[in-house]
């Protein structure tokens, strides 16, 4: 018993090197065994699923047939929308979008090992460029993220796992929140949505892709089911249904995305002048991409910087809270954003005019 407590304490104190190596070795050793077992057991598993989940499968089959008919009718419209979005992304250099990241297709080779974890195992690993933390998607939307990687195997934490969380954005209102799994394959909960935000059932929810997020923006997560105010926090809690059925995954795509490192430390530089003594100027945080292998596409995001900070003897150069950009920098960023929005509107008008001319 005391040995077990010591192990727990060691793991909490950060001695994860030994335990992580042991877990990776176990995953490596058990991987081929589990692949064989998966191949052997698949007929029995299918028979078992057919017995216990026949009604659900029948209903899902009917629903999918209906969706397929509807999807075939909107293919052309969807292709046009994708072209427009791509043009806007390139116009605004929105390189954090998931559409610009490479992907590795992997097959799901095993199901959750524990009743308290919702994870799956993939047949691809570090040899294919997969790293811990990379998002995983399947067809329509987000599946989860990679939590363990060995050479030829990787383990993915599903979005429905109770410990999973992702920054999301409500498409219609643009409001952001944090979506968390709860161990239930049917629902996730978004927290910290403003109470005055109008949430409509059926509204789409995508990853927000904000600075520092582990996920690129724009990956579909789910659709709104219901919303209720939380009297404790003063925000809304929104229940969403994941678009991906995490219980029936066979093929997934690992997005080879590495989030940019945000360095919030102010960088102090010194300028010289012929008429005045040297004054300290302060630049503001920039995002840098990690030094990763050049053969893999990484997404970058450039945060506007400004050298117009007021001279100050303090290293942070802030008038308000330590480390916060001064109002002049915020005004500059607001002006940049307004200019970008104006360009988008002009592009839309130009495209609309061209479409009408063609007709």
């Amino acid at each position: 018993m005391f040995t077990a407590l010591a192990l727990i304490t060691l793991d909490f104190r950060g001695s994860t090197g030994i335990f992580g190596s042991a877990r990776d070795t176990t995953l490596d050793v058990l991987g081929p065994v589990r692949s064989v077992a998966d191949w052997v057991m698949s007929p029995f598993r299918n028979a078992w699923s057919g017995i216990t989940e026949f009604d659900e499968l029948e209903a899902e089959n009917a629903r999918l047939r209906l969706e397929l008919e509807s999807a075939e009718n909107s293919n052309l419209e969807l292709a046009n929308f994708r072209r427009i979005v791509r043009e806007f992304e390139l116009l605004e250099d929105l390189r954090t979008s998931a559409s610009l990241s490479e992907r590795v297709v992997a097959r799901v080779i095993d199901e959750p090992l524990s009743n308290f974890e919702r994870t799956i195992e993939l047949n691809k690993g570090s040899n294919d460029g997969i790293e811990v933390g990379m998002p995983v998607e399947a067809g329509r939307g987000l599946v989860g993220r990679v939590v363990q990687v060995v050479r030829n195997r990787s383990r993915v934490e599903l979005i429905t796992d109770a410990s999973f969380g992702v920054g999301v954005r409500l498409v219609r209102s643009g409001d952001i929140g944090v979506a968390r799994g709860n161990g239930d394959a049917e629902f996730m909960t978004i927290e910290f949505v403003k109470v005055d935000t109008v949430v409509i059932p059926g509204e789409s929810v995508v990853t927000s892709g904000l600075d520092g997020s582990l996920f690129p923006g724009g990956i579909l997560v789910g659709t709104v089911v219901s919303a209720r105010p939380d009297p404790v926090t003063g925000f809304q809690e929104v229940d969403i249904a994941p678009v991906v059925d995490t219980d029936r995954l066979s093929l997934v795509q690992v997005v080879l995305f590495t989030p940019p490192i945000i360095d919030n430390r102010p960088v102090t530089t010194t300028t010289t002048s012929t008429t005045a003594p040297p004054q300290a100027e302060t630049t503001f945080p920039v995002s840098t991409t990690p030094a990763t292998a050049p053969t893999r596409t990484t997404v970058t995001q450039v945060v506007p910087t400004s050298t117009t900070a007021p001279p100050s003897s303090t290293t942070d150069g802030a008038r308000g809270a330590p480390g916060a950009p001064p109002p002049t920098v915020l005004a500059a960023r607001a002006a940049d954003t307004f200019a970008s929005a104006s360009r988008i509107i002009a592009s839309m008008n130009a495209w609309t005019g061209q479409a009408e001319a063609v007709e």
Partner: protein
Amino acid sequence: MLLAGALVVQTAVLPQVTYRGRVLDVMLLLAVCAGLVGGPDRGAVIGFLAGAGTDLVVQTPFGMWALVGSVIGWCVGSVYGSYIVGGRVMRQLTVGIALATGTAGYVVLGRLIGQSFLGDVSLLPIVLTVAVGGMILSPLAMRAVAWGFSLTRMPWDDSQ
């Protein structure tokens, strides 16, 4: 050998046969049966090793299942024979209750050490699946543990 084989069964076979996403817990069953068959000391040791095997394949802090396994193994070995006696049905009931207690204890331990997300899952279906499945497999598991310990006679067998 027995523990390695059980780990292979737990990770390679049982995930293929789930009921509504719930899987049986053979490693915890091993700890309970070790307590029943071998007494509190062996139950604690085998429970610790079985739990450590589970810790190797899950993402929660290492040692949680080892602690739960050792405690459950020791408790079952201490309680059965001293305070609980009976035939096959009573043994299976003991196994079911011990499995349910161990599974719930894992959640409680998790919340105590900051793994609060463990409390967000629906515990009752998990406990029922683990307990009922363990009760069904317990006769086979007890024979396997007796073979692994090289026991020639079950502790409750007075025929010899």
